């Protein structure tokens, strides 16, 4: 049941002027505030990526100075990890959709939601200040004692920026957990929830449990740097490897913060564009939780060569293999959903196909890294760089874009040009593979990461990678144009343009401020596609 007429009043028209946006308590408007900030940071991070690939066209470090290059890759990592990948899907799509999908009027704590956006922006401003002030050159991993005692760059400023930004993650996670527990509509039992919600619940658990650990770790680095409290300095009795344990205890689960929401989007898109419930719904739901839990137990696989004991390495290796299983199960279940489905090929579904291929390669190359004997050779090389870009760009960004294309009509009430959208998805897929596949090869050959200059025999692979990056850039630029164009000239979107199931499709496009005219009462399972 959808409303044929376009509403005159919706959350976009409910209040004009900058104050009504900057002081909004509406989760949908906050999602859009995030869309603007996160997109801005993505562009900045992408510019840095472009500079990296430009420099690496030639073996000699001839585009920029070494220090400058080191700052470029550091800022690329810091911005992309903390200011794009972690917030993108949860804070934009999650904020917008979680209340709608469970039939609530808003998140549990709307003012804390707004606060989380301010905290994100302020953290971002500190980081930009550090950038303008000369940048940071420690790598996004801030290893001590380089970061705490040796670097001559703006470590403290960036550390403060990331610390503040971490609270955005914590507050968002907290909000999601309470909302999902306490504000589901009547009849919306746990096992009728969309898998997007399960995924965001699992993500929120990690946000809440993991982020404080990196917060305190950064406090310690800052204290060491500013007050000479030598927690990690061997000359003061400290252990620099302790930093690595504390850092990765968060930063490994952080990568699950990045991928779980994408998996949530994946479930929604597969269901919608095969018009079928997800095969093995409960298994997929529990896999999300399993990934969140086991994800906290594997951090040592980032440290196989940093002087860990053999037994620690064995334990982390085994657990790292085990954490791959739930992800594999999800891929099988999504694929099985296609069987006897009714499949259509709008842009979001093109992103789905891309995700399956790229996540398979990214995930399976994780096995190479879990195998300690191989990891010894490939850790700190471009092999690892390729692996994580396959998951984060090939996985998360594909689903971020897929989700954006799926829910765009709901969010803005406008349709975009379907043909261009499909073409962009394909361009992105091609550009992505050309950029990152050669990096597996050059990594196994031995090219270390974070290298400003490299031996000439690695050049072919670097040139291929940089060429791919140019294509990828075009692919990312295209949606910017046709999506913005749709806001101005796009066709008005009906309440349910895709014929999908889900509470968000049972309200108008765009929704009214209070989401539903009457509180929905849920009587059917999720994805209940029946003729």
């Amino acid at each position, binding site marked *: 049941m959808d409303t044929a007429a376009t509403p005159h009043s919706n959350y976009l028209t409910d209040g004009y002027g900058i104050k009504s946006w900057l002081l909004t308590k509406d989760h949908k408007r906050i999602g859009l505030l995030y869309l603007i900030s996160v997109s801005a940071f993505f562009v900045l991070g992408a510019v840095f990526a472009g500079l990296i690939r430009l420099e690496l066209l030639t073996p000699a470090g001839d585009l920029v100075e070494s220090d400058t290059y080191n700052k470029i890759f550091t800022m690329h990592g810091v911005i992309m990890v903390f200011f794009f990948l972690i917030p993108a899907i949860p804070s934009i799509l999650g904020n917008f959709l979680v209340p709608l999908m469970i039939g609530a009027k808003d998140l549990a704590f709307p003012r804390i939601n707004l606060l989380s956006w301010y905290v994100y922006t302020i953290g971002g401003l500190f980081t930009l200040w550090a950038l303008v002030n000369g940048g940071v050159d420690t790598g996004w991993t801030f290893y001590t004692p*380089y970061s705490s005692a040796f670097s001559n760059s703006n470590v403290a400023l960036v550390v403060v920026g990331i610390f503040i930004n971490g609270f955005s993650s914590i507050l968002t996670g907290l909000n999601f957990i309470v909302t999902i527990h306490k504000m589901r509509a009547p009849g919306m039992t746990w096992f009728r929830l969309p898998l997007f919600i399960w995924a965001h619940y699992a993500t929120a658990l990690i946000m809440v449990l993991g982020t404080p650990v990196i917060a305190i770790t950064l406090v310690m680095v800052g204290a060491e740097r500013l007050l000479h409290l030598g927690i990690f300095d*061997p000359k003061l009795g400290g252990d620099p490897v302790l930093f690595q344990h504390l850092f990765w205890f968060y930063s490994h689960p952080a990568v699950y913060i990045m991928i779980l929401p994408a998996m949530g989007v994946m479930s929604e898109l597969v269901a919608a564009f095969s018009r079928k419930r997800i095969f*093995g719904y409960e298994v997929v739901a529990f896999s999300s939780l399993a990934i969140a839990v086991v994800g906290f137990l594997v951090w040592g696989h980032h440290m196989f060569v940093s002087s860990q004991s053999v037994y620690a390495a064995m334990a982390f290796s085994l657990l790292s293999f085990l954490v791959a299983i739930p992800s594999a199960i999800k891929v099988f279940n999504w694929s099985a959903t*296609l069987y006897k489905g009714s499949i*259509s090929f709008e842009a979001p579904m093109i992103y789905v196909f891309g995700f399956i291929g790229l996540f398979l390669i990214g995930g399976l190359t994780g096995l190479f890294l879990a195998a300690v004997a191989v990891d010894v050779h490939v850790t700190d090389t471009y092999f690892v760089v390729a692996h994580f870009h396959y998951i984060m760009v090939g996985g998360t960004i594909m689903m971020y874009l897929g989700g954006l294309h799926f829910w765009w009509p709901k969010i803005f009430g406008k349709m975009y040009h379907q043909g261009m959208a499909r073409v962009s998805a394909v361009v992105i897929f091609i550009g992505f593979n050309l950029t990152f596949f050669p990096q597996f090869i050059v990594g196994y050959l031995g090219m270390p990461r974070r290298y400003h200059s490299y031996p000439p025999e690695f050049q072919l692979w670097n040139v291929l990678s940089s060429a791919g990056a140019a294509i990828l850039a075009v692919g990312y630029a295209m949606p910017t144009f046709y999506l913005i164009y749709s806001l101005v000239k796009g066709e008005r979107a009906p309440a349910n343009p895709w014929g999908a199931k889900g509470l968000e499709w049972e309200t108008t496009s765009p929704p009214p401020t209070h989401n539903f005219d009457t509180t929905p009462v849920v009587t059917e399972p999720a994805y209940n596609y029946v003729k």
Partner: protein
Amino acid sequence: MPQTQILPTQASTMAPQVDALYFFLVALTAFFTLLISAFVVYAAIKYRRRSPDEVGKAIHGNLKLEITWTVIPLVIVLFIFGWSARLFFTMARPPAQTLDIYAVGKQWMWKFQHPDGHAEVNELHVPVGTSVRLTMTSQDVIHDVYIPDFRVKADVLPGQYTHLWFRATKPGRYHLFCAEYCGTNHSGMGGWVFVMERADYQKWLAGSAGQGTMAQAGERLFKDLSCITCHREDTTGRGPTLVGLYGRAVNLDNGGSVEADEVYLRESIVNPRAKLVSGFQPIMPTFQGLVSEEGLLQLIEYIKSLKALPSNATGAPAAPVQAPAGPGKK
């Protein structure tokens, strides 16, 4: 002109073993990627929507299938784990007999010390077919020794000793990279490992080494820094004797005991109060800042050379046994 390769050279005993596991993983990845992609393409075509209102078939799931595709991947990953674990144990346990070479990394260069006294900067000469063990430390930040063609890598830490071992199988020249980001010239902090035929290596050893073995240099430091005042060959000194100390268990004043390895020896010199030997007073001053990392390694080599001799009839202190030196020394 260096050739572009697709796979790195296999120049050590580990390399083919690591590559075998790697190729298996590549095949596994290719297999599953193609299998699932093929299924997806097939399903996309076969089940494409044929009318606007069409919906898919309501299939809940299949427990047997779930179990199958949980157990099979589990078995596969456990297999990979087992294979990798066996291989890793070999990597982590050097053979009993090794040629020990010391490495000190600092921003942004490598210094290698051979026990016979040869010192190299950014280059390492080793004989083919000999197990070589590198003992490494950093003077400043964390670095990493990576020799891709040997498939070995280990971080190099300040205030600690870390190790790696390899046995080269092909003479030639191989890249050595720093593989832990360490600041401005991280990408320039590399060098070459020269693997030489035995005869050529002997010739190289015979070349200029200058001031004697590391142990001899260590002995000079031992005297210059007055260590000898308290640490005598017998037990009459104010400090414990160092003869036969290396590798032995040491009883500490807190009731515990520790093995006198390189890390313990280094710590005892730069922070003597961290561990007190039972029965001795805490009067040893710290030598932090007074000895370089190379000097510390030389002292350690000297201490290693102080093996207890069988009972000495004259009662006079016996000369410490020298570490085996290469030909043409002194």
